[in-house]
């Protein structure tokens, strides 16, 4: 179980893997996540599901190498088994046929988790406008899949190497300036700073926006509370109450502070691992 069936490197630091997990694929719904442990001494890493196939029995994960665990995962090969792979976890995105258009915003590797939600929304008959952005065109992922899952796609890069030049929240604002009347719902997934900016942009037009949070987690089943976030003044557990919340109610500054909790220890673990493995 949890064998790596296929591994692709999409950019210097971004990888995609298809993991054999028949029962997880069967149960997975849009917006849910999994937790994996690469090897035995590893930590539990939560990743939102990018795609899954019931017929072929796999779940797709897309991740960026940021620390020891993701580096170790990226160096595992097709055919190897993950030490642990559990899911699906969290609440599914609440989808329905909305009146008017739905805007899906994916930033960086946040493009991956918007994919199953966009696809589901389109299947349900929604007009889906996807705004996907990355730093450069090299870092822009899953464009073709997003095209398939959307009615309309707007691409943006920070450096203008592809599509519009600028951040996705600016593109969102431009879009809403023209189309606000026809938009009934917005999703934004990406780094917290990007989700915060998109929430502010949506707020200017009084549009509801859903964000998917990725705080530090341990068990991912509501047992530990590591992932607590303040939503509308109340403490919620992102793992079981989320991961999606009304962006307007999320305390993003607290979320960002909590994500930095182990920065020094994470750096130390990464350096030791690189030294041990002889990685420059």
């Amino acid at each position, binding site marked *: 179980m949890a064998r790596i069936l296929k591994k692709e490197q999409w950019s210097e630091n971004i990888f995609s893997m298809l993991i054999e997990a028949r029962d997880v694929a069967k149960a997975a719904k849009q917006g*849910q996540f999994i937790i994996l*442990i690469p090897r035995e001494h*590893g*930590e539990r890493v939560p990743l939102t599901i990018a795609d899954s196939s019931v017929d072929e029995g796999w779940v797709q994960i897309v991740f960026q190498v940021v620390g020891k665990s993701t580096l170790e995962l990226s160096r595992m090969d097709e055919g190897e088994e993950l*030490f642990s792979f*559990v899911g699906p976890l969290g609440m599914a995105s609440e989808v329905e046929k909305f009146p008017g258009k739905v805007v899906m915003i994916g930033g960086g590797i946040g493009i991956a988790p918007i994919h199953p939600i966009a696809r589901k929304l389109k299947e349900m008959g929604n007009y889906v406008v996807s705004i996907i952005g990355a730093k450069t065109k090299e870092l822009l992922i899953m464009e073709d899949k997003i095209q398939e899952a959307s009615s309309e796609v707007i691409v943006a890069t920070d450096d203008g190497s592809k599509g519009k030049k600028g951040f996705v929240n600016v593109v969102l604002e431009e879009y809403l300036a023209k189309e606000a009347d026809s938009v009934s719902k917005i999703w934004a997934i990406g780094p917290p700073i990007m989700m915060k900016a998109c929430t502010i942009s949506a707020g200017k037009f009084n549009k509801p926006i859903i964000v998917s949070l990725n705080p530090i987690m341990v*068990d991912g*089943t509501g047992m*530990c509370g*590591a992932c607590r976030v303040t939503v509308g003044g109340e403490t919620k557990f992102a793992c079981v109450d989320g991961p999606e919340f009304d962006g307007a109610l999320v305390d993003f500054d607290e979320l960002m502070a909590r994500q930095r909790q182990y920065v020094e220890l994470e750096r130390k673990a990464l350096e030791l691992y690189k030294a041990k493995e002889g990685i420059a």
Partner: protein
Amino acid sequence: MAERLRPAEKFKRDRVPMREQDPNERIKNFNEVPYGYSLEEAIAEAQRCLQCKPPSCVEGCPADVHIPEFIDKIIDEDIEAAFKEIKLTNALPAVCGRVCPQEEQCEGACIMLKKGKPIAIGRLERFVADWAREKGLTDEPPKEKKQKRIAIVGSGPAGLACAADLANLGYDVTIFEALHKPGGVLVYGIPEFRLPKAIVQYEVDQIKKLGVKIYTDYVIGYIKSVDELVEEYDAVFLANGAGAPSFLHIPGENLNGVYSASEFLTRSNLMRAFDFPEYDTPIKVGRRVVVIGGGNVAMDAVRTAKRLGAEEAIIVYRRSRAEMPARAEEIEHAEAEGIQFELLTNPVRVIGDENGNVKGLECVRMKLGEPDESGRRRPIPIEGSNFVMDVDNVIIAIGQNANPIVARSATGVKTNKWGYFIADEETGKTTHPKVWAGGDIVTGAATVILAVGAGKKAAKSIHETLSQE
């Protein structure tokens, strides 16, 4: 074969003490604190047993361990027979011998307690189980198999006990465990220095040898519903544990450096953060650590903090020492390790620095008023007594709530207003004819042995019900 003492001699002798690691040494490691009895010590303790008929100690044991019988076999120096006697009713003797509150169970019912020196039944059980493990004794699966299939949700003490009893009766038993290792609270909750994980693993492996299948990484409620289990199996036992930490709901609780005891202990025990960076999961313990609460979990957390390098590890508890729910032994161990106690003290708010890290805890002093519904005297804040402690971590160990994941996938299994399953105390039967429940998800946070007892009662009831079909 050691001699049988006359009653007068039995009364004269004292309890055989158990040797343990020196407190100054043990606060620097995670090795188990007590060393356990030697054969000679075990025999000397066993010789004190009065062999009462009927034995009151067994009345006090939720696992129905044949206590006088196994003790008598220790005197015979036939430890293998003693082990088999225990295993007739208890699949987890090495665990129970260590973590049961014997003073409230078997030893609390021992006639020798009247003399102030009850038989050290827990230590003897532990001795026998450890001896069997060192000798590599293994369990045999039953010869006759039944066709009926049982699903158990959760591999903690209730689930394991139920699985072992049903497997011994020949049932085809499958356990579904949410985490990547079986054992539940025995693995994520109780620290290594109180219950070494290798011991839990061994007892789990024995249960597997009975034919029990354990699927880890399998969260019922997400990957499969209880409703589906009811369709696929002849009976379902829900033993998923309480599983949701309580917080204080005071300002500053989401600052960096504030942990629930569950998170703190899961990081250290299950994920082995005490061995970072050998293991990848980090844990951050500063110079001064406060643990809020007075139960066993609070003691486990504060003693873990000390071992992780806290110079000062402090219990903050709102009542007085007499009301602390932790076992006397745990409190004594903590005191010996230099844990400080701020009693009659309640936290008011956590204070953070400009980076969102904990730097202080404001508390208020309390006094005891009239008894409340729990029978304990209600703590009342003393106005104007607020003060601030400089602290780097705050660990909240004030109990658990019901985790809703399993319950919301279980149609027809009723819960009470707190989200715990409603189940008959004697049988574990729920409001669904094919579903039983037991352990903390019925009672709220309790002890390992009560969960074992609930698992056994459910196994008996499931067997009775399925035998009638």
